[in-house]
């Protein structure tokens, strides 16, 4: 049996503002295959379509044409309800700007993705506390997020991405606001996830990210196209 990738794209194309004067072709004919447990980095200059590809993979927007399979399921034409469901069950997002909700404390931010589910709030709370513990954030649990340092905000964001125990972790320019030490720390956490069998996909043009030797798949992008696919894993 041929093992299909956890993420598979076929001629994925994305236009913004299709048919208008400000039409942009952000992604053109992207075909690739990411296997379960891969550590993938999308690399490329600004405007090359990394974020666009990441949000397509993460089911946050739909492709203009082409197909996208997530865990073997064609999701390009699913209605928005199902996309949300997949987002909630399969993906954990770490955004470039962290996108934490201000005015709420760390714990509440971490618990947030699972509020609209039937989980018991006490279960949710203990799960969030365990994750924060694992990231060394327990002492910041009740701090309002806007008062945290950049690294702490990011760890809060990571914890939030993990609350639903996702198979795939997506991170967009995660090191953009971090110094070298914190960036390395972040990469170490990500590496840990891969060790646990999770699929990690990071979009970045930071050498601290894409020069790591443990990367399985490096996708080089330019002008919305894949220029180079470079595999580290021996069996590919």
């Amino acid at each position, binding site marked *: 049996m041929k093992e299909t990738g956890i993420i598979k794209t076929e001629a994925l194309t994305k236009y913004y503002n299709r048919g208008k004067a400000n039409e942009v072709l952000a992604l053109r004919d992207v075909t690739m295959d990411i296997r379960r447990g891969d550590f993938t980095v999308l690399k490329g200059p600004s405007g090359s379509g990394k*974020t*666009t590809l*990441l*949000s397509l993979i*993460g089911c*946050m*927007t*739909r492709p203009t044409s082409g197909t996208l399979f997530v865990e073997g399921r064609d999701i390009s034409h699913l209605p*928005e*309800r199902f996309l*949300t*469901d997949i*987002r*909630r*069950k399969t*993906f954990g*997002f770490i*955004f*470039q*700007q962290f*996108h934490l*909700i*201000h*005015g*709420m404390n760390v714990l*509440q931010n971490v618990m*947030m*993705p*699972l*509020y*609209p*589910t*039937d*989980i*018991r*709030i006490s279960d*949710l709370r203990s799960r969030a506390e365990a994750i924060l513990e694992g990231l060394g954030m327990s002492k910041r649990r009740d701090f309002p997020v806007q008062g945290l340092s950049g690294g702490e905000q990011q760890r809060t964001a990571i914890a*939030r991405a993990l609350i*639903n125990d996702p198979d795939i972790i997506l991170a*967009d320019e995660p090191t953009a606001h971090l110094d070298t030490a914190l960036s390395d720390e972040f990469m170490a956490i990500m590496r840990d996830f891969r060790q646990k069998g999770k699929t990690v996909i990071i979009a970045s043009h930071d050498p601290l990210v894409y020069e790591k030797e443990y990367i399985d798949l490096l996708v080089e992008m330019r002008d919305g196209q894949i220029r180079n696919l470079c595999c580290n894993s021996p069996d590919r």
Partner: protein
Amino acid sequence: MSADKHINILDFTIQSLLRRKFKNAGIILVFSFVIFIAGSILFLSYSFKREAVLILKDAPELIVQRTLAGRHELIPEKYAEIIARFPGVSDVSPRYWGYYYDSLVKANYTVISADRSLQTSNRLFRGQMPGEGDFGNAAIGRGIARARFIDIGDDVSLIAADGKVMDFRIAGIFESESELLTSDLIVMSRQDLSRLFGFPGGVATDLSVSVSNETEAPVIARKIRDRFPDTRPILRSEILRTYDAVFGWRSGLILTLFAGAMIAFIILAWDKATGLSAEEKKEIGILKAIGWETSDILEIKFWEGLVISLTSFLTGIILAYLHVYFLGASLFAPALKGWSVIYPEFRLAPFINMYQIATLMSLTVIPYIASTIIPSWKASITDPDEVVRG
């Protein structure tokens, strides 16, 4: 099916509202105040109308006034004999009454004569009602008793039309529970009243007409006007309608006084309804990106509207009730009653019109919820990828 999800969302919503404590507390305050005003007016005017209708149920069906040069004038008693012969008229009695201005306490009394006595079982009257030829006795209302510091057995002197002092012994007094009807009354015999006011012989203040069939009252009123063009018949139904109009007017007046609060509230709601702040839009995007559905987002907004509007409504309506029925509507009393020396002291009977309250609720709570949900509709259906790129 479990409600956990909805409770969780509600939890989140309240947490989110608490972030803008002062703004949301301000909205609840203004909202409660608006409900309080509107509720007070509804309670007040409805209770008054109900009480007035009940109290005046057995008022004369028809009053015939005479007018002279457009002013109220004493009516010859012989009109009564003629009107009594009209078909459908069962009884015509002249009423003798007038106003007495007491310069001592600067108050107006209503002086009235009785030709019958109350049943002894009437719990709202104590003592003796001065009847025909009962000279020198009077029965008074509580308002006068308070203003003049007098009670049963005391004497009161009034100055007659000819300038002479007339002394009356207080033989009866109306109990305070009847104050809404009797507060300023002085009842005396017809003979004393005629002397006090200097009535010429053979005239009364007006005529009270009873009809055998109330539906015919308008017809009889027209006949009276045809026969006596100088009269003005007043129907009981019109009296009750006058009260409707009076309280309608005054409620409107109070509403006008508080129009500022209403407008402030409408502006507030409008401000919310016409657009989300960039921050709110961003938050909606974040929630969607981390896996909230459109319907979950709308549910937050529903809860948000419900929490604020229901809290305000319940608070406002309860305060309105306490204000009207326990504090005597002290905030509105000046605008409703006007200035007066002998205020009737009464506690309104709490008649509540549930239909009005339900209407008030549906006119405030539902639009408020709608105005929180509708503007976030658009933000909640757009793709969350805008947020991803920050």
